[in-house]
Protein backbone atom coordinates (compact mmCIF):
# COMPACT_ATOMS: atom_id res chain seq x y z
CA UNK A 1 0.00 0.00 0.00
CA UNK A 2 1.77 3.17 -1.13
CA UNK A 3 2.00 6.14 1.20
CA UNK A 4 0.73 9.22 -0.66
CA UNK A 5 0.67 12.72 0.77
CA UNK A 6 -0.30 15.99 -0.91
CA UNK A 7 0.40 18.71 1.61
CA UNK A 8 1.55 22.28 2.17
CA UNK A 9 3.83 21.33 5.09
CA UNK A 10 7.42 20.31 4.60
CA UNK A 11 8.56 16.70 5.10
CA UNK A 12 11.55 14.81 6.50
CA UNK A 13 13.25 12.52 3.95
CA UNK A 14 15.06 10.62 6.70
CA UNK A 15 11.86 9.84 8.58
CA UNK A 16 10.20 8.80 5.32
CA UNK A 17 13.04 6.42 4.45
CA UNK A 18 12.88 4.87 7.93
CA UNK A 19 9.10 4.44 7.70
CA UNK A 20 9.32 2.89 4.24
CA UNK A 21 12.00 0.48 5.39
CA UNK A 22 9.93 -0.47 8.45
CA UNK A 23 6.96 -1.15 6.17
CA UNK A 24 9.09 -3.23 3.76
CA UNK A 25 11.49 -5.19 5.98
CA UNK A 26 12.38 -7.61 3.13
CA UNK A 27 13.70 -4.80 0.94
CA UNK A 28 17.33 -4.95 -0.16
CA UNK A 29 17.22 -1.62 -1.98
CA UNK A 30 15.71 1.77 -1.25
CA UNK A 31 15.95 4.59 -3.78
CA UNK A 32 14.77 8.15 -3.27
CA UNK A 33 14.41 11.36 -5.17
CA UNK A 34 13.90 14.79 -3.63
CA UNK A 35 13.10 17.82 -5.76
CA UNK A 36 14.13 21.19 -4.33
CA UNK A 37 13.15 24.78 -5.24
CA UNK A 38 16.07 26.30 -7.14
CA UNK A 39 17.20 29.88 -7.37
CA UNK A 40 20.49 30.75 -8.98
CA UNK A 41 22.25 33.75 -10.46
CA UNK A 42 21.05 32.93 -13.97
CA UNK A 43 17.43 32.70 -12.83
CA UNK A 44 16.90 34.19 -9.38
CA UNK A 45 13.50 33.78 -7.77
CA UNK A 46 12.31 34.84 -4.33
CA UNK A 47 9.58 32.22 -3.97
CA UNK A 48 7.45 29.71 -5.82
CA UNK A 49 3.75 28.95 -5.53
CA UNK A 50 2.42 25.53 -6.46
CA UNK A 51 -1.24 25.35 -7.37
CA UNK A 52 -2.95 21.99 -7.80
CA UNK A 53 -6.29 20.34 -8.52
CA UNK A 54 -7.16 18.73 -5.20
CA UNK A 55 -9.93 16.41 -6.38
CA UNK A 56 -7.65 14.94 -9.03
CA UNK A 57 -4.16 15.06 -7.51
CA UNK A 58 -4.20 12.39 -4.86
CA UNK A 59 -6.30 9.81 -6.76
CA UNK A 60 -4.06 10.23 -9.82
CA UNK A 61 -0.88 9.81 -7.75
CA UNK A 62 -2.40 6.80 -5.99
CA UNK A 63 -3.13 5.14 -9.34
CA UNK A 64 0.37 5.66 -10.71
CA UNK A 65 1.93 4.45 -7.45
CA UNK A 66 -0.10 1.22 -7.62
CA UNK A 67 0.96 0.82 -11.25
CA UNK A 68 4.63 1.33 -10.32
CA UNK A 69 4.37 -1.18 -7.46
CA UNK A 70 3.14 -3.81 -9.88
CA UNK A 71 5.38 -2.96 -12.83
CA UNK A 72 8.60 -2.91 -10.78
CA UNK A 73 7.59 -5.50 -8.14
CA UNK A 74 8.02 -2.92 -5.41
CA UNK A 75 7.79 -3.85 -1.74
CA UNK A 76 6.67 -0.32 -0.89
CA UNK A 77 6.59 3.23 -2.16
CA UNK A 78 6.14 6.75 -0.81
CA UNK A 79 5.19 9.88 -2.76
CA UNK A 80 4.89 13.33 -1.21
CA UNK A 81 4.06 16.44 -3.22
CA UNK A 82 3.75 19.88 -1.68
CA UNK A 83 1.56 22.80 -2.76
CA UNK A 84 1.39 26.45 -1.70
CA UNK A 85 4.19 28.95 -1.28
CA UNK A 86 7.76 27.58 -1.14
CA UNK A 87 11.15 29.24 -0.81
CA UNK A 88 14.45 28.44 -2.55
CA UNK A 89 15.97 25.36 -0.93
CA UNK A 90 12.57 24.02 0.18
CA UNK A 91 11.78 20.44 -0.84
CA UNK A 92 8.86 20.22 -3.30
CA UNK A 93 8.49 16.54 -4.06
CA UNK A 94 9.73 13.24 -2.67
CA UNK A 95 9.66 9.75 -4.16
CA UNK A 96 10.97 6.69 -2.34
CA UNK A 97 10.74 3.08 -3.48
CA UNK A 98 11.67 -0.20 -1.78
CA UNK A 99 12.47 -3.33 -3.78
CA UNK A 100 14.41 -6.57 -3.50
CA UNK A 101 17.06 -5.36 -5.90
CA UNK A 102 18.58 -2.03 -6.85
CA UNK A 103 17.53 -1.81 -10.49
CA UNK A 104 13.81 -2.05 -9.71
CA UNK A 105 14.03 0.61 -6.99
CA UNK A 106 16.06 3.01 -9.15
CA UNK A 107 13.91 2.56 -12.24
CA UNK A 108 10.64 2.90 -10.31
CA UNK A 109 11.89 6.14 -8.76
CA UNK A 110 12.76 7.54 -12.17
CA UNK A 111 9.43 6.38 -13.63
CA UNK A 112 7.47 8.05 -10.83
CA UNK A 113 9.29 11.39 -10.93
CA UNK A 114 9.00 11.50 -14.73
CA UNK A 115 5.27 10.90 -14.34
CA UNK A 116 4.83 13.50 -11.60
CA UNK A 117 6.56 16.13 -13.78
CA UNK A 118 4.01 15.79 -16.55
CA UNK A 119 0.87 14.08 -15.25
CA UNK A 120 0.31 15.18 -11.65
CA UNK A 121 -1.92 18.28 -11.87
CA UNK A 122 0.43 20.88 -10.34
CA UNK A 123 1.38 24.25 -11.76
CA UNK A 124 4.35 26.31 -10.65
CA UNK A 125 4.41 30.07 -10.45
CA UNK A 126 7.73 31.81 -9.82
CA UNK A 127 7.87 35.08 -7.87
CA UNK A 128 10.67 37.41 -8.96
CA UNK A 129 12.42 40.12 -6.99
CA UNK A 130 10.62 42.91 -8.90
CA UNK A 131 7.29 41.65 -7.53
CA UNK A 132 6.20 40.01 -10.77
CA UNK A 133 5.09 36.39 -11.02
CA UNK A 134 5.36 34.06 -13.99
CA UNK A 135 3.81 30.68 -14.66
CA UNK A 136 6.53 28.14 -15.46
CA UNK A 137 6.22 26.71 -18.99
CA UNK A 138 6.21 22.96 -19.37
CA UNK A 139 9.23 21.39 -21.06
CA UNK A 140 8.80 19.24 -24.15
CA UNK A 141 11.70 17.16 -22.80
CA UNK A 142 9.68 16.31 -19.68
CA UNK A 143 6.82 15.08 -21.85
CA UNK A 144 9.25 12.93 -23.81
CA UNK A 145 10.77 11.58 -20.60
CA UNK A 146 7.36 10.49 -19.35
CA UNK A 147 6.34 9.07 -22.72
CA UNK A 148 9.38 6.81 -23.06
CA UNK A 149 8.05 4.66 -20.17
CA UNK A 150 5.06 3.62 -22.24
CA UNK A 151 7.25 2.10 -24.96
CA UNK A 152 10.06 0.60 -22.86
CA UNK A 153 9.69 -2.87 -21.40
CA UNK A 154 10.89 -3.11 -17.77
CA UNK A 155 14.56 -4.07 -17.68
CA UNK A 156 15.46 -7.43 -16.15
CA UNK A 157 17.23 -7.42 -12.86
CA UNK A 158 19.47 -9.61 -10.79
CA UNK A 159 21.58 -8.88 -7.75
CA UNK A 160 20.55 -6.24 -5.28
Amino acid at each position, binding site marked *: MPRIAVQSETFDPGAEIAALQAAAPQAGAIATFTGVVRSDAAHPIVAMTL*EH*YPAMTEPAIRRIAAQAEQRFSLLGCTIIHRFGRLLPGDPIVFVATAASHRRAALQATEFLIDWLKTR*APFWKQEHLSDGSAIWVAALAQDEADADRWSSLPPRNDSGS
Partner: protein
Amino acid sequence: MASLRILYFAWLRERTGHGEEELPLPEGVATLGDLIAFLRTRSAGYAAAFADPRLVRAAVNQEFARPETAIAAGDEVAFFPPITGG
Protein backbone atom coordinates in the same frame (compact mmCIF):
# COMPACT_ATOMS: atom_id res chain seq x y z
CA MET B 1 -26.99 17.96 -11.39
CA ALA B 2 -28.30 19.56 -14.55
CA SER B 3 -25.31 21.87 -14.85
CA LEU B 4 -21.58 21.65 -15.54
CA ARG B 5 -19.01 22.45 -12.91
CA ILE B 6 -16.04 24.12 -14.59
CA LEU B 7 -12.65 24.69 -12.90
CA TYR B 8 -9.81 26.88 -14.17
CA PHE B 9 -6.22 26.63 -12.95
CA ALA B 10 -3.07 28.75 -13.16
CA TRP B 11 -3.21 31.37 -15.95
CA LEU B 12 -6.54 30.06 -17.22
CA ARG B 13 -7.97 31.07 -13.83
CA GLU B 14 -6.31 34.48 -14.12
CA ARG B 15 -7.50 35.13 -17.69
CA THR B 16 -11.08 33.95 -17.24
CA GLY B 17 -11.29 35.62 -13.84
CA HIS B 18 -12.82 32.46 -12.35
CA GLY B 19 -11.46 29.62 -10.25
CA GLU B 20 -14.69 27.73 -10.71
CA GLU B 21 -18.20 28.22 -11.90
CA GLU B 22 -21.48 26.37 -12.41
CA LEU B 23 -22.98 26.56 -15.88
CA PRO B 24 -26.08 24.97 -17.44
CA LEU B 25 -24.94 22.67 -20.27
CA PRO B 26 -25.10 25.04 -23.26
CA GLU B 27 -27.31 24.00 -26.15
CA GLY B 28 -25.40 22.15 -28.87
CA VAL B 29 -22.44 21.32 -26.61
CA ALA B 30 -21.70 17.57 -26.68
CA THR B 31 -17.90 17.45 -26.46
CA LEU B 32 -15.06 19.25 -24.75
CA GLY B 33 -14.23 20.92 -28.07
CA ASP B 34 -17.78 22.25 -28.32
CA LEU B 35 -17.52 23.62 -24.78
CA ILE B 36 -14.24 25.41 -25.52
CA ALA B 37 -15.77 26.98 -28.65
CA PHE B 38 -18.72 28.19 -26.53
CA LEU B 39 -16.53 29.55 -23.71
CA ARG B 40 -14.38 31.57 -26.14
CA THR B 41 -17.44 33.63 -27.07
CA ARG B 42 -18.23 34.68 -23.51
CA SER B 43 -15.76 37.55 -22.99
CA ALA B 44 -12.38 38.91 -24.01
CA GLY B 45 -10.88 37.17 -20.95
CA TYR B 46 -12.29 33.78 -21.95
CA ALA B 47 -11.17 34.35 -25.53
CA ALA B 48 -7.64 35.10 -24.26
CA ALA B 49 -7.63 32.03 -22.02
CA PHE B 50 -8.49 29.72 -24.91
CA ALA B 51 -6.68 31.68 -27.65
CA ASP B 52 -4.05 28.98 -28.24
CA PRO B 53 -5.63 25.55 -27.84
CA ARG B 54 -2.17 23.89 -27.90
CA LEU B 55 -1.51 25.44 -24.48
CA VAL B 56 -4.72 24.23 -22.88
CA ARG B 57 -5.16 20.84 -21.23
CA ALA B 58 -8.39 19.52 -19.74
CA ALA B 59 -9.86 16.86 -17.50
CA VAL B 60 -13.44 15.59 -17.36
CA ASN B 61 -14.41 14.13 -14.01
CA GLN B 62 -10.73 14.21 -12.95
CA GLU B 63 -9.51 12.21 -15.96
CA PHE B 64 -7.39 13.76 -18.70
CA ALA B 65 -9.60 14.49 -21.70
CA ARG B 66 -9.31 15.46 -25.36
CA PRO B 67 -11.42 17.79 -27.56
CA GLU B 68 -13.53 14.82 -28.71
CA THR B 69 -14.29 13.67 -25.13
CA ALA B 70 -18.08 13.70 -24.55
CA ILE B 71 -19.46 15.85 -21.77
CA ALA B 72 -22.85 15.86 -20.11
CA ALA B 73 -24.73 17.72 -17.43
CA GLY B 74 -23.32 16.84 -14.02
CA ASP B 75 -19.74 16.57 -15.22
CA GLU B 76 -16.81 18.36 -13.61
CA VAL B 77 -14.64 19.88 -16.34
CA ALA B 78 -11.23 21.38 -15.55
CA PHE B 79 -9.02 23.53 -17.80
CA PHE B 80 -5.34 24.10 -17.10
CA PRO B 81 -1.94 24.68 -18.74
CA PRO B 82 0.49 21.81 -19.39
CA ILE B 83 1.57 20.38 -16.06
CA THR B 84 4.70 21.59 -14.27
CA GLY B 85 4.74 19.30 -11.26
CA GLY B 86 7.56 17.46 -9.54
